[in-house]
């Protein structure tokens, strides 16, 4: 146990404040962009990372100019990143202005993937050490300890920037328009303001702030390829804890998170990751709109476009599904082990996607953390099999049970909110689960995961496992379908489309959504349990953000307006990913481009496009 002496307290507090400043730089830009454009910009961490890399390159080129070279590089990096922000806005997000809010979000995740591979291609995989800041290389003595001057400088940057932004928003026409547009951008356009220019400017500002944050990290830490996602998740936490749209809130939250981390490392190094998200969960449970937030900002995040009415399967589709099941069931007769393994995995992904679709498509609750339940299911089955030596049936039950229980807890927290806040809270819950699996080494094996999770005979063979998977996944998909057309499914959709009217007609909206959350979690657990057996191992990556995003992509790729969508999306995405990861060197960038193409060209997904084609044909047949 660390002994708390006054100098340690002071130094850790100062460390916390220094981190808070850089966190605030990123979070403020995120908050401003969200306020005006309603885009939850996942790529904001990429802007931060690009700021650091560009700053590194610029300082090397301008090294001979001394102090001017360093500070010029920092500013230059911020400006270039601002320009990249404008490009992202113009090329991608501008095309998605009328799409449901989830699409821009996914698009920005596509940008994340592209930037990751671009940075890898340009700067290589090694960590890069930046120069010290000229003039700020010294130390000051605090009690008996030495504290870097640069950290003191960073501490001052946060409040200075907060003051600068305050002046910008209160004293300039640009700031006035930003504040007005944050409240009602359509009305601002009706008063003659060019929204597109305003959006571009806002993106420039937000991206440049993130770039500045990244470049200012150069003297502090090595530049690396993992900076993007870690900082953007922390920035999300800061923005949500502070209250969306409140800059003061973002600064206070950044300080809170910075201090918690600084002291967490001292006392509870094993749970620092969990601690941050725990604080977020507590704040949101007590103040759903953050410390300084107001409820108005929570509107939005439509998940489903209007007029997507679910229809029961036609007879021909039923026959088609039955044929598919028969065909897969017959695979052991003609297919090889590799093909059967792939198909089993795709079936599992289909259940994972369908469970998220249940929550998102039917319930209107977009979860960014659905992988948590997939992963908990996987760990549940794996632990039951390896540590507890349970029979296989019990293991397969443990998966949905564990995930369902976690879903009951997470759902209780999450359904109190809606829209972006719900998405962020689900992300936080998932990050807690991820951090737990990562840091609770005794049980989960930490980074090494759990190995040797193989099903016993008769399911040990590829064919046996495929048949087991087929039976369970077909049953799971059928149950989700039946649930959608049950009274519960109607109530859930009513709660999605018109919560007040649903409430007035006797539906307990929150209870319905809570139940849906738990059900979706349990089905994700089914998928996770099977996945553990299919892979023979479980790792913390099963609960990571990228896995949650995979699920979102599968649902949107297939088309959210149809129950068949997630199944088709899972097969298309799973197949594509297997193909890409096996062959292409820059598969992440390719995946990113595919995501962008998907949301821009075919926002209604595969089923939407197919549906339109069929509709056209029927129309022309009818008129002929």
């Amino acid at each position: 146990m660390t002994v708390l002496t006054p100098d340690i307290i002071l130094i850790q507090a100062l460390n916390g404040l220094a981190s808070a400043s850089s966190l605030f730089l990123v979070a403020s830009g995120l908050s401003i962009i969200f306020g005006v454009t309603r885009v939850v910009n996942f790529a904001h961490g990429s802007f931060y990372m690009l700021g650091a890399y560009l700053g590194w390159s610029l300082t090397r080129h301008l090294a001979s100019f001394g102090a001017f070279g360093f500070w010029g590089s920092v500013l230059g990096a911020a400006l270039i990143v601002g320009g990249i922000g404008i490009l992202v806005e113009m090329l991608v997000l501008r095309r998605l202005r009328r799409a449901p809010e989830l699409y821009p979000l996914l698009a920005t995740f596509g940008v994340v993937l592209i930037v990751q591979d671009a940075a890898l291609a340009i700067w290589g995989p090694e960590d890069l050490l930046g120069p010290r800041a000229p003039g700020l290389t010294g130390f000051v003595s605090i009690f008996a300890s030495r504290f870097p001057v640069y950290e003191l400088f960073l501490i001052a940057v946060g409040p200075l920037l907060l003051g600068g932004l305050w002046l910008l928003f209160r004293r300039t026409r640009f700031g006035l328009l930003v504040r007005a547009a944050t409240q009602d951008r359509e009305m601002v356009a009706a008063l003659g303001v060019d929204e597109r220019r305003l959006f571009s400017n806002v993106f420039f500002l937000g991206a440049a702030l993130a770039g500045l944050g990244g470049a200012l990290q150069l003297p502090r830490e090595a530049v690396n390829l993992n900076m993007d996602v870690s900082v953007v998740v922390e920035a999300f936490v800061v923005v949500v804890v502070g209250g969306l749209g409140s800059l003061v809130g973002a600064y206070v939250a950044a300080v809170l998170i910075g201090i918690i981390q600084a002291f967490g490392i001292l006392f509870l190094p094993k749970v620092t990751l969990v601690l941050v998200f725990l604080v977020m969960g507590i704040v949101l449970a007590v103040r759903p709109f953050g410390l300084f937030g107001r409820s108005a900002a929570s509107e939005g995040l439509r998940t489903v476009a209007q007029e997507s009415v679910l229809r029961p399967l036609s007879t021909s589709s039923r026959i088609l599904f039955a044929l598919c099941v028969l065909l897969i069931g017959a695979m052991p007769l003609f297919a090889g082990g590799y093909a059967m393994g792939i198909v089993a995995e795709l079936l599992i992904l289909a259940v994972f996607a369908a469970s998220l679709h249940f929550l998102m498509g039917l319930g209107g609750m977009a979860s960014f953390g659905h992988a948590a339940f997939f992963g908990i299911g996987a760990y549940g089955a794996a632990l039951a099999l390896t540590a507890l030596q349970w029979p296989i049936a019990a293991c397969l039950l443990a998966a949905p049970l564990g995930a369902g229980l976690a879903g009951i807890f997470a759902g209780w927290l999450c359904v109190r909110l809606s829209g972006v806040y719900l998405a962020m809270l689900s992300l936080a819950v998932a990050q807690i689960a991820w951090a737990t699996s990562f840091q609770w080494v005794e049980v989960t094996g930490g980074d090494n995961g759990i190995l040797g999770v193989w099903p016993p005979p008769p399911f040990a063979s590829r064919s046996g496992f495929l048949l087991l998977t087929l039976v369970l996944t077909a049953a799971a998909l059928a149950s989700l379908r039946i649930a959608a057309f049950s009274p519960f499914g109607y109530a859930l959709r009513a709660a999605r489309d018109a919560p007040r009217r649903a409430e007035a007609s006797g539906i307990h909206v929150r209870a319905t959504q809570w139940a849906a959350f738990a059900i979706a979690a349990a089905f994700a657990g089914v998928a996770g349990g099977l996945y553990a057996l299919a892979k023979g191992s479980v790792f913390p990556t099963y609960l990571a953000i990228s896995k949650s995003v995979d699920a979102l992509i599968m649902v949107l790729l297939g088309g959210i307006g149809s129950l068949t969508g997630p199944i088709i999306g899972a097969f298309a995405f799973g197949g594509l990913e297997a193909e890409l990861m096996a062959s292409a060197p820059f598969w992440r960038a390719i995946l990113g481009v595919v995501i962008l193409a998907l949301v821009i060209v075919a926002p209604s997904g595969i089923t939407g496009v197919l549906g339109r084609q069929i509709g056209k044909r029927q129309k022309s047949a009818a008129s002929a």
Partner: protein
Amino acid sequence: MTQAPVLSVEALDVHYGRAKILHGISFEAKAGEIVALAGRNGAGKSTTLKAIMGLVPAWAGRIAFEGQDITGLDTYRIARMGVGFVPEDRRIFTDLTVAENLAVGARPAKDERKAWSVERLVAVFPNLGRSLHRSAGHLSGGEQQMLTIARTLMGNPRLILIDEPSEGLAPVIVEEMAQALLALKRDKLTMVVSEQNLNLLAAIADSAVLLERGLVRHVGPMSELMSDESLRVRYLALP
């Protein structure tokens, strides 16, 4: 030589998704005239105004402002050409002060008429002058409605589209509203006012366009509508 009307709408069609809302709407507003857009709830009054403003896309038809085709233009361009829009649900910026609300709408005038300033607006809407630096969210309903009109005037429009100005207002406030609109009319401002309150329309409008389920049923002088009870009963269910 006859001047082009300030606004002309020809055979305008609007769809929301699969539902067709407007079926070939046509009407005109001449310079300095107040045109009443009357009809029951759901007749298509708001949609017509939003379509003129480019807030909902026109599927077919042509909209011209001072002879120039504005169909399909971006909303902000239409606003900059000189068309003002006052939405029905007020939509003031409640986080901003009254003065800031006015500043958002401010644009330089493009014709010879005297440009609007905060001082001139305060003369027309005295209540706003007393609370210029207060948060707009603290205004009363009537004051908020006056603010939406004042905010639009700051852009020095030559035509304004006003959607349901009397909605939810007390009769005495509606009377104030009528006086304000008449003051604007004396300033040669052309207006299209969508409204259900016939008394307000009778006090200010020159001509009336009667809408029913997305169709124009009658166009004529306002006085005709007021004297012909059968018209009112048929399309407005009012004696």
